């Protein structure tokens, strides 16, 4: 069991969702996060006081998958979320000991 986590640009979420869907991965958990990195933020000015917005809105996606699908899924997520511009984000993979579906108590692959 693996957990693929992606931190991407907000506008790419839809493409990633479609890409995963196309592969038969039809569940995911998504959250709004702030990213800090190479990508430069913008400046806001209020009554002459300048604020540099360094943390930029990103979307975090967590997808639990069969470990056999890891490469395929990572590939799909990366290509769907890539715009080629700085700040496109990261995708990483973590090993998971166990997954349970709350509704049924099913475990492992059945839980997905």
């Amino acid at each position: 069991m693996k957990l693929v986590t992606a931190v991407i640009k907000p506008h790419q979420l839809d493409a990633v969702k479609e890409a995963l869907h196309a592969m038969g991965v039809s569940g995911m958990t998504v959250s709004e996060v702030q990213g800090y990195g190479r990508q430069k933020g913008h400046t806001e000015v209020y009554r002459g006081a300048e604020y540099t917005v360094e943390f930029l809105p990103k979307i975090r996606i967590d997808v639990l998958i069969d470990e056999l699908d890891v490469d395929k899924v990572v590939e799909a997520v990366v290509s769907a979320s890539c715009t080629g511009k700085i700040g496109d984000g990261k995708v990483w993979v973590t090993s998971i000991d166990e997954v349970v579906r709350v509704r049924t108590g099913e475990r492992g692959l059945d839980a997905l």
Partner: protein
Amino acid sequence: MFLAEDVPPVIDTGHTSWLLVSSALVLLMTPGLAFFYGGLNRSKSVLNMMMMSFSSIGLISILWLFYGWAGAFGKDIPLNGSTAGFIGNFTDGHGHSYLGTNTYFDLFGYPNGFAGPNHSIPTYVIMVFQMMFAIITVALISGGIADRAKFIGWLLFAAGWFTLAYVPIAHMVWGGGLLGTTIGEADFAGGSAVHINAGAAALALAIVLGRRVGWPRAAFKPHNVPFVALGAGLLWFGWFGFNAGSEQTVDATTAVAFVNTQVATAGAMLGWIIVEWIKGGKPSLVGASSGAVAGLVAITPACAFVEPWSAALLGLVAGGLCCLAVALKYLLRADDSLDVFGVHFVGGWIGCLWIGLFASAKSGWLFAPDGGVFHEGLFRGGGATQLIAQLEGAAIVSAWSFVVALVLGYALRLLGLFKAKETAQLEGLDAHEHQESAYETFTPGESVGAGAHAAAGV
């Protein structure tokens, strides 16, 4: 619009007080509109949307003071002996220019300082009341171009359209010009001069600026529905000044206009949510608010010309029809983002035509001793005369405004001044055009990710 002759003025404090209050009420409508539109917009461009309304107040007030009033309410320049014209001659008709610093009317040595029956109202008050109309008409247009207009382009467009469309049309409808005088179109408070006018311009601009990225497939849901309702509430409140204030004096017609405004708006709110229900959906607050605005629009031209039951019915009809009309933009494939066409243009037309169908002598204004030029409606025994005048008037306003907006808009777009880049659209116009954001979104403490440095060399 009555201009004073050489009679000593005795201010009627009641008339004047009412018109002052009405002016303040109509001013408040534009911030109200900013909330109505802002709430319907997505949060990343809400400030841009609100800025289009607020900047109209700033810009148009000044233009109106220095030449707008003079053009719209100056003495008519007739096309020939018997046909009233397109624009005023920028004077009061007694040889006094209204332009520039001469907008300072001499209040202590008439003839042009006072107006109204028995010169009972300072002309200034009428000037400022009409100023508020010009402001909101321009602001209304902005709903058609959500999320994609450069601010500089908006300002230039606003100034140009105001000059080339609003001023002549206001003159033609109310200032002694072609529509109100020669054609005989009846428009009490601005169904054509304000709403059809703004609605046609908004459609033109929506076409000029093209669609937002993703439209119509993507989600453009309102980011703050309570703001929509706040806007609707302030508009409703202010609209009493707009409609009942348009009588300028306090009399029986004022009372009728006030009552009709209330019941038509109520009827339209019901009409909209009933149609939502019938179509299989649920009655919504966005619907109730939109219906209210549709009703206010539709009763605007007719408020002094029909009985209350007729106003209530007009509201019900207009609310229901506008609920359907907001789908027209998909047929037209124009991203009229906040439905200025579907609500103001369509609602304005409904109200203008209603006069041709239902205007009644019982309202006491059409045929009052001071000489109404209008006719009763088709269903009230007056034949088709008034209906035809209404059609002509509304059509001329529609075409004039649409063409001016289209030409001006394309010119500005070609100059690269009007359409924002796609990245600006995606990241939001607030950051790109105004360097600010509407809400605190990430505030883990005072000291995160930011350093405030005073400008001005500090």
